[in-house]
Each structure stands twice: as structure tokens, then as C-alpha cells.
């Protein structure tokens, strides 16, 4: 391999050790309730990782990631809470029930409801977000810099407005009462305290899997092509890189990751509201990528883990959005390469007396 440092699998193994250590520490200190926020942090981290690939490697900004998260979350919430039990006799619905696409659940009043299987919700939510990302990405990714930022911002605003303005999506209240998602034998994604530890490991297991796959990707031919597009798009094209297609594919991948996180988090917390679709959420994701350093998946993960956890614990209080907005401004002003990489590279630079090698911090 051309880049120094620990190979991706070794780093992921270290992450696994850290994840177990954190769980044991919360248990030993009697703070098991922290796992709830840590689990949520894991899902938000998936959004940030997808965005890190898009921004830090392919060099394309998106201020619309909360929109994709919300598409996934709302699809899951809507599909799993609709009740089609009145139509159960219809042949199509009977067939869907037999195929497992519809599942019966007891409701609060002792009856049963018939809703969509969460697996189908996951597939549809991620599929819908990917389709939308493709449709939006093809025209929008022709734009660069500020124009791309504006266009994705507009997309996020539209999703947010649709969420707030649609009665069937609960308007300003959002959708609650989303049932748990039995994803593995014995593991249900849901807020029950008995499932807390399992949910924590599931969320962070997915983060570790994402780190492994994306870590491999950025070191591959595709990753090299992405960084080349970022560095000098014309030269990348002259070397045979289909830049337009490559950008759209990464945009779709990042959107799919955001949507999957949206689906799972919605089942975990039992609902979703329009604030998840808000533009400020998108700004947070961008801020976390920026803090972690452009072109650094591990930096983005660290930033997301720390900042999102603090935010969910309420450390920033009423100034939450202001803190993330402020962080973004400060990073752009003083450390556009990211705070985490900034310090390390600054030191290396001084030692060598020349610019450090960028792109090493994956």
C-alpha cells in the first residue's frame, strides 16, 4: 500500500475495542443510560461518514443530508404506523401478509393493526432516498462550490417544508408510535431498556462496518479517482475518470447511508419529527466533517462521536444550533483542513520544514 499508518482492518479492530470499553465503563459507573445517546450518536455518525466521503474525498459539498435522513426516517415511520387491517381481506393485502410484507401488531386498545414490515420500510426508505439522490444529483452535481451548496440547501429546505406541511406525515408533530424493528434474532431496534446494550452494539457494529468498507474504498482505485476529481477535475477526466458519473454515485451512496441511519434511528427512538429534516441538521453534519478534517474518515468519526454525544446529552443547552454554526465558522476561518488533522499536520510540517502529506489521515 502506498500510504503509511495502520491498515484499515487494524484500525477497525481498535474501534471495536473502544466500543466495548465504553460499554463496560458505562456499566461499571452505573451510567447505562448513556448508551441511549451513544446509540443515537452511532446512527448520526453514519450520516457524517457518508458526507465525509462526499465532501472530503470527492470534494462535493452537500447541505441536504438531513433531507435524505428524513426521507428514510419518514418512510420507515409512515409505513410501519399505517394500519391497513380494514383491507386485510383484499387479495393483494392477503398476499402481502403471506409474503411477510405486512405484519400484525397488537395495538394499545387490545386489537391488532396491520402495518408494513420494517424490513420493507428499510428497503423502501433507502431506495427512495437513493432514487431522489440520483434524480437530484445528476443535474445538481454539474454545479460547483457555492452553487452546489445552494442547490443542495434548496433540496433540504424542500424536504423540510414537505415534512412540516404534510398532514399525513404528522405536520409539525411528526410521526410517533413507530414500533421496534426486530432486525436480528433477539435484537429489536427500539427504546426498551432491556434492548439498550444490544442496540448500542448494533449501531456501533454498523459504524465499524461502514468504517471498514469506506476505509477500503478510499484506498482503492475508486477512492483515488475521487481524490483526483477533488484535486484537478480536468486532469482526472483526461486520465479516463468519468467524473460526472463518479460524483453521482458517491452522492447516492452518501444519501443511502443517511437514509439507512434515518430508518434505524426512527425505529430506535420510536418516531421522527420535522426537526430531523431541518437545514440546521444538515449544517451540523457539515460542521462535524469539517472539524474532523476533509479527507479523513477517522477524523469525521471522532468529531461526530464527541460532538453528537455532547449535543444529545444537552451540554450545549439552548445554544445547540448556535454552537454547531459557530464551530463551522471557526473551522473554516482558522483550520480549513479540520481541527484534528490541523494539529497533527501542523506538527509534522514543522518537523519536516515542508507541507505534510495530505490524505494520510484516513
Amino acid at each position, binding site marked *: 500500500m*502506498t*500510504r503509511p499508518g495502520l491498515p*484499515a482492518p487494524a484500525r477497525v479492530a481498535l474501534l471495536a475495542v473502544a466500543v466495548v470499553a465504553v460499554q463496560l465503563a458505562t456499566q461499571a459507573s452505573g451510567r447505562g443510560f448513556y448508551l441511549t445517546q451513544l446509540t443515537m450518536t452511532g446512527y448520526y455518525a453514519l450520516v457524517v461518514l457518508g458526507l465525509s466521503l462526499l465532501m472530503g474525498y470527492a470534494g462535493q459539498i452537500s447541505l441536504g443530508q438531513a433531507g435524505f435522513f428524513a426521507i428514510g426516517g419518514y418512510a420507515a415511520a409512515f409505513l410501519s404506523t399505517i394500519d391497513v387491517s380494514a383491507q386485510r381481506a383484499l387479495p393483494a393485502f392477503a398476499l402481502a401478509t403471506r409474503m411477510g410484507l405486512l405484519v400484525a401488531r397488537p395495538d394499545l386498545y387490545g386489537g391488532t393493526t396491520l402495518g408494513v414490515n420494517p424490513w420493507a420500510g428499510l428497503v423502501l426508505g433507502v431506495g427512495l432516498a437513493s432514487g431522489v439522490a440520483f434524480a437530484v444529483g445528476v443535474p445538481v452535481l454539474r454545479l460547483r462550490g457555492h452553487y452546489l451548496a445552494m442547490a443542495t440547501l434548496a433540496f433540504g429546505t424542500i424536504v423540510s417544508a414537505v415534512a412540516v406541511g404534510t398532514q399525513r406525515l404528522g405536520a409539525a408533530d411528526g410521526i410517533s408510535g413507530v414500533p421496534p424493528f426486530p432486525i436480528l434474532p433477539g435484537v429489536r431496534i427500539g427504546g426498551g431498556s432491556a434492548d439498550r446494550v444490544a442496540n448500542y452494539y448494533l449501531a456501533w457494529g454498523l459504524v465499524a462496518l461502514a468504517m471498514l*468498507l*469506506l476505509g*477500503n*474504498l478510499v*484506498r*482503492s*482505485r*475508486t*477512492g*483515488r*479517482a475521487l*481524490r*483526483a476529481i*477533488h*484535486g*484537478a477535475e*480536468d*486532469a*482526472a*477526466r*483526461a*486520465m*479516463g*475518470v*468519468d*467524473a460526472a458519473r463518479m460524483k453521482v*454515485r458517491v452522492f447516492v*451512496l452518501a444519501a443511502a447511508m443517511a437514509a439507512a441511519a434515518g430508518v434505524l434511528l426512527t425505529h430506535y427512538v420510536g418516531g421522527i419529527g420535522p426537526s430531523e429534516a431541518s437545514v440546521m441538521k444538515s449544517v451540523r453534519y457539515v460542521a462535524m466533517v469539517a472539524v474532523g478534517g476533509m*479527507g479523513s474518515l477517522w477524523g469525521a468519526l471522532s468529531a461526530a462521536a464527541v460532538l453528537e454525544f455532547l449535543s444529545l446529552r444537552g451540554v450545549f443547552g439552548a445554544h445547540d444550533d448556535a454552537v454547531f454554526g459557530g464551530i463551522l465558522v471557526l473551522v473554516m476561518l482558522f483550520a480549513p483542513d479540520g481541527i484534528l488533522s490541523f494539529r497533527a499536520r501542523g506538527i509534522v510540517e514543522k518537523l519536516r520544514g*515542508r*507541507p*505534510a*502529506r*495530505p*490524505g494520510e489521515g484516513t
Partner: protein
Amino acid sequence: MNLLEVIGVSKRFGGVQAVKEVSFRVRKGAVKAVIGPNGAGKTTLFDLLSGFRVPDEGTVRFKGREIHGQAPHQVAAHGISRTFQNLKLFGHMTALENVMVGRHVRSRAGMLAGMLSSPASRREEREIEERARAEMRFLGVEPLSLSPAGSLAYGQQRAVELARALCAEPELLLLDEPAAGLNMRETSELAEQVLRIRDRGVTVLLVEHDMSLVMRISDEVAVLCFGQKIADADPRSVQRNPEVVRVYLGDD
């Protein structure tokens, strides 16, 4: 045999006729130069050949196939590789990674294979790296492979860019003012490198200002002036062509 045929190609920008009905051929295995004073349309011509611009009129044929109107990555896939007048390296990547990108068009591992780090994709990565190192060795820049491309000296960056273009194993190599910004020693190194590239069987078409370089390495020279071709022959005849002399030295 003609590897590249340019037939009646024109390109206009607003009121400026940058290239006007230019035709020429590049024989397989030859070194051909296109020269001309500033603003003669040389770089526009290169952009037309490499897919960065679409000609208003005319035909570009490579190995008998029409390629004008195709996107740069498609042109690259046919076996045409280029460098840029103002060096376009990926500054934040290492020199080796830069050269490895040159292999993109000759390799195939996709996104999924990359994510899964499949055995086939790892094997391909090793081949890409070996090939890239070989090209860097060929141009004497292998010791710089782990340096960030942006930190290299200008002449070294030139060589890395050339290695990147060669790593695609092109049949036709387009060099856009390769001697620009080089000192005399570097220019003569470049001349020798171009001849070694030709000896490998790669056909070379270059746009150049430096007359001594052009006269030394070219088998044929075409002269452009205000977007039109005014001469196209072997270097000696071109040097004696009164029209060319007038354009270069001013009429008197």
C-alpha cells in the same frame, strides 16, 4: 499508417475564430509538433483532440474511428493520453498516487470491489502500483514517489505528469507545451525523454513554443497562425518556409 487524422476542424468562440479548417495527420510512431505564435489556436486544437471541447465543424479520426464530440474520459479510453500546459497534478496526493490515477483507464475495479477489497481488486492494485513505479523509474522520479505532488519542484512535477500520462499506456501522447517553464538542462532532458517514449512505440503530438526542442525531436512540424495551418512538413523545410519565417520574424 495514420494514427490520427484531423480533417477541416474549426472552432469559434463568439467572434473569435480560434481554429479554422485545420487538417493534418499524425503517422503512427512519429513525433509531430504543432507550433505557432501565441494565440495561434494551439491549445484550443489540443482541447478539440482530447474531448475537452467539441469542434464546430470537421472530423477527428483516431485509428479510423471518429472521436470528436466524445467526452475526455471516452477519448482516453481509446488510447489518447495528455498533459496540460499549466500542469494539472493532484497536489494533495503523493507523486505515486498521481501516476497510479493514470492507470485508471486500463483498470476496472469498481466501487463495490473497492469496498470489499476483493482479491481481484487487490491484485489489480498491485499491478497498478508496479506499473506506476515503472513509469516513474523510466522518467527518473521514482525516489519522489511518496512526496506530495504539490511539494515537488516544477521540473519534477512535469516528469510526474508525464509519467501519469504514460501510465495509461497510450498509443497517442498529447503534450501541451511540455518545455514551458523548464530550464535548458531540463529541456534537453525532456527532448531525450520524448525520443525514448517514441522508441517505445508511442506516437507523440506536441504543441510547443521552444523551436530548438521542436526542431530537434520532431519528424514533422505543422505551423498554425491565427487558427489556420500555414505549413506542414519536415522540420528543415518548415524552417525555410518563407511564410513561416515571416510569421515568426515579422515581415520586412
